[in-house]
């Protein structure tokens, strides 16, 4: 057991915890958070694989001892994950403003008490 394997097992647990939140949390914002948790766990798995593959580069005298290919993929992945989160948040805030709910249920139980779409956006929310 070394540190890298330990991080790998932690990453597996993070994916499990994120998946649990994604399914169990009723609020969409909590689901977005949980989804970020899954993504972060998967990035960490990549990082573990990069570290395992990195010995050769260190032997070549290039300083770093990580495999740069998975690392570069994780960096682009982080940027795309941020962009995806931004879209999800924008859609969710808009949903809350127009439909008056922040869950993904389709039954109109909460929405019926509020006139959907009729209210000018922003009057109810600070």
């Amino acid at each position, binding site marked *: 057991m070394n540190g890298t394997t330990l991080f790998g097992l932690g990453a597996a647990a993070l994916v499990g915890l994120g998946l649990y939140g994604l399914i169990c949390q009723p609020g969409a914002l909590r689901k977005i958070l949980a989804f970020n948790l899954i993504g972060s766990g998967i990035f960490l798995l990549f990082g573990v694989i990069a570290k395992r593959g990195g010995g050769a580069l260190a032997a070549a005298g290039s300083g770093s001892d990580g495999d740069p290919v998975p690392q570069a993929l994780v960096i682009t992945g*982080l940027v795309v994950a941020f962009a995806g989160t931004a879209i999800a948040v924008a859609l969710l805030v808009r949903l809350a403003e127009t439909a008056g709910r922040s869950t993904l249920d389709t039954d109109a139980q909460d929405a019926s008490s509020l006139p959907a779409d009729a209210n000018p956006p922003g009057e109810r929310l600070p």
Partner: protein
Amino acid sequence: MSLGLISDLVLVLLVLSLAVWMNIARTAYRAVVGFVAYGLLMTLIWVRLAAMDVAMTEAALGSGLTGILLFGAASRLAPFEAAERARAPGPALRLLIGLLCTVVAAGLGAVVLLLPEPAPTLAPLVAENLSPTGLQNPVTGVLLAHRAVDTLLESVVLLPALIGVWSVAADADWVGRPSALPRPPASEALTLLAQVLPPFGILVAIHLVWIGADEPGGKFQAAAVLAAMWVLVMMAGLRQPPPVVARGWRELLVVGASLFIAIGIAGIWLADAFLAYPEDLAKPLIIAIEVALTGSVAVFLALLLAGPPAGAHRREV
């Protein structure tokens, strides 16, 4: 058990307990606080994995900017949380889901334990082919030379993302300014910070782009720092977010990817392949792309945070 392993164990346990906290926290706001702390600890894990470039990106983007985004959303959505809680699944269903997720995690854990030995790797290939690019940082080499297509697509994909965020605005709000950034009450401390910090931030960003060719650093990290500085200035109220119809900003958005594509196409004639660089010009061209992309990505990140445009009546509240 070595000292390094003990600190790794402590890090993993802290990260996992924060992940649990994100699941059980009563309000979304508390969960987001957990997420930001989680991101900072994750940064330490990346350092331990010898991935300095990723660590910097995680700290600036994964923890910092995502944190601002989620804080803003959490405070806007706080009035709806009571209704959410009523819809949580019952204990039996939770147990079932928990078991399912444990199986998934155990499967992944087994994969980690059964990874092939010796690890398959592209690292020697990268190390051999780094010298023609004139770069020292292998991660930048992969991003801009060996896997340049990925990086190009990734910088282009920010555009549909921003269009997606903008397009949730109501028609009447289109001419307005973005308003999703949290606006804390005016305070002298915040104003001071927003005046003192940006010069340092800009300096750090330039430094990151410049050394990115040879040492950990590069355009994404620099762009995240620049975006954070701009967002700070906007949150302090010293500058308004630009209206989405402003032409100059839109041009800034596409300049990075355009230059990348132009140099890539020029490579067809000069170096016999799309996105290939002529041998003696590789480093200057890569640095030019890095600089242009830094500007564009910084504007993208800040505008993604600033959110969809909102009408004037909304901005006042």
